[in-house]
């Protein structure tokens, strides 16, 4: 087999992005051209794929909380709010937030700050789906209802559990209980469930 020459940094970077599904259409064309004509690029592509496969099979490492600077999340909270945590960091941060009241308090403060900033007058006009959706005449009635009803949205439709019978019926079944059973069963999605007593 011939020696594999290192491919250019750009091709290597594009191949990596290709594996991440992050290429633009033009970049994709460039990668396809490289893989069709450049043996070195093909070798690099295989090397990257192998490396990723190996990394995926490694056991997940859980960073001890003591190793997190200061014992708390600090600037990772901002990254969490921005959705910028890399995959491996996310379970660490989630676990820590589940147990650390200080970090949850800090998260709440950050969240409030961001919400306040969001509430400032926008510099970018909101973009709605209206142009397309409003063309659908049959939906207009509902939209009007939504607008009228939005002010009254606080009125919830809780159904009180009020016994109907005279006390002699052998079984009293609450419709709220039946609804709860349905939503619980429907929430299983596609995966089989096992009994895990504890928090849902």
């Amino acid at each position, binding site marked *: 087999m011939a020696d594999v020459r290192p491919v250019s940094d750009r091709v290597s970077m594009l191949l990596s992005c290709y594996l991440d599904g992050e290429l633009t*259409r033009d970049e*994709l064309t460039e990668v396809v051209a490289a893989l069709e004509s450049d043996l070195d690029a093909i070798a690099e592509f295989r090397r990257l794929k192998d490396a990723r496969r190996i990394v995926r099979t490694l056991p997940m490492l859980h960073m001890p909380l003591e190793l997190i600077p200061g014992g708390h999340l600090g600037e990772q909270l901002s990254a*969490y*709010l921005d*959705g910028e945590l890399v995959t491996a960091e996310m379970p660490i941060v989630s676990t820590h937030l*589940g147990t650390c009241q200080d970090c*949850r308090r800090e*998260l*709440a403060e950050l969240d409030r700050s*961001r*919400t306040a900033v969001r509430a400032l007058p926008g510099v*970018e006009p909101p*973009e709605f*789906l209206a142009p397309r959706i409003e063309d*659908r005449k*049959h*939906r207009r*009635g*509902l939209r009007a*209802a*939504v607008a009228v*009803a*939005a002010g009254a*949205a606080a009125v*919830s*439709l*809780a*159904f*009180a*559990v*009020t*016994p*109907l*019978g005279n006390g002699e*019926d*052998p*079984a*009293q*079944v*609450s*419709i709220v209980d*039946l*609804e*709860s*059973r*349905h*939503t*619980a*069963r*429907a*929430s*299983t*999605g*596609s995966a089989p*469930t096992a*009994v*895990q007593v*504890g*928090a*849902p």
Partner: protein
Amino acid sequence: MTMLRRAATVGGFALLTLGLVASSAVADELSDYIDRAKDSTYTANRLVVSVWGEETRISSSYVEYSDGTEMVRVDSTWSIVGNGRSVVVNDAPQGVAFVTHAGVIDTGRYSVGDVTNVRHMRRDCHLVEVMEGDTVRAVILFDSRTGAPLITETFTNTGKVFRRSSLQDFKAYRTYAAPRDVDDVPYEIVMPLQSELLPQSVGGYELVDIFPAPGGAEQGFYSDGLFTFSLFALAETSAVTGFESPMPFITASGSYDLVATPQDVRIRWSDTNNQYVIVGDLPPDHAADVLAELPAPDVRSMFSRWWTRIFG
């Protein structure tokens, strides 16, 4: 045919979709979107509006969603639903947990229509149409970055919206406002059972599994791949409480008691032997199709029941 999976109505709140395929990054199947939605994490205020006949129902709630579990706050009460479990956090919280080995139901009833890339609330989104034959059954707006369903609209077979669910003040993270101390909540574990009482398929829906229910009843869980409902078969003498101010739902097969909420519909009737209750998110035309294939309401039974309740 594109496979559809059940859009999980965690917390009883229906999710929702549409587009032109713009790039190879767009998922080909609705199941891909649904899977991403199930893996998403977000916090938002959810507004749900549903219309049944002349009646409009509205709810507004604060929602945290993470790890396939939805935490919903209405007023000061939290409901936590996901992965087969449900618990309402109140003074005496109690939960129910379902065990199931059933797989995905694919009735081939639905396909993906157009998928369009759009901007909504300054976010990149995919607008996905869900088709039932030539009819648009639902339109779902998925957030591209997180996969969360920002808006879901469901239509009747005549093209009218009957339910719309939208996430407002959307944040792509959890705020951890939901209660966490529910580890000690007692759960009723519900195991599947074998029964011949309930039909295997009805109105295009397939029986997924059966469970015991309160009062010696049986709960049949049905799905058509997108919508779901549970059919409860109870003893004729059982009293269903909380079924207040029902409206008549008249179909070719008879007259039924119906209560609509923003998230679901509840239908009750009796034949000569049993009392039945349906709870689910099925559209009105689907409800009529389902009822047409189940035991019809028995008028004498209904009068008898009310006579017994009133006069003993």
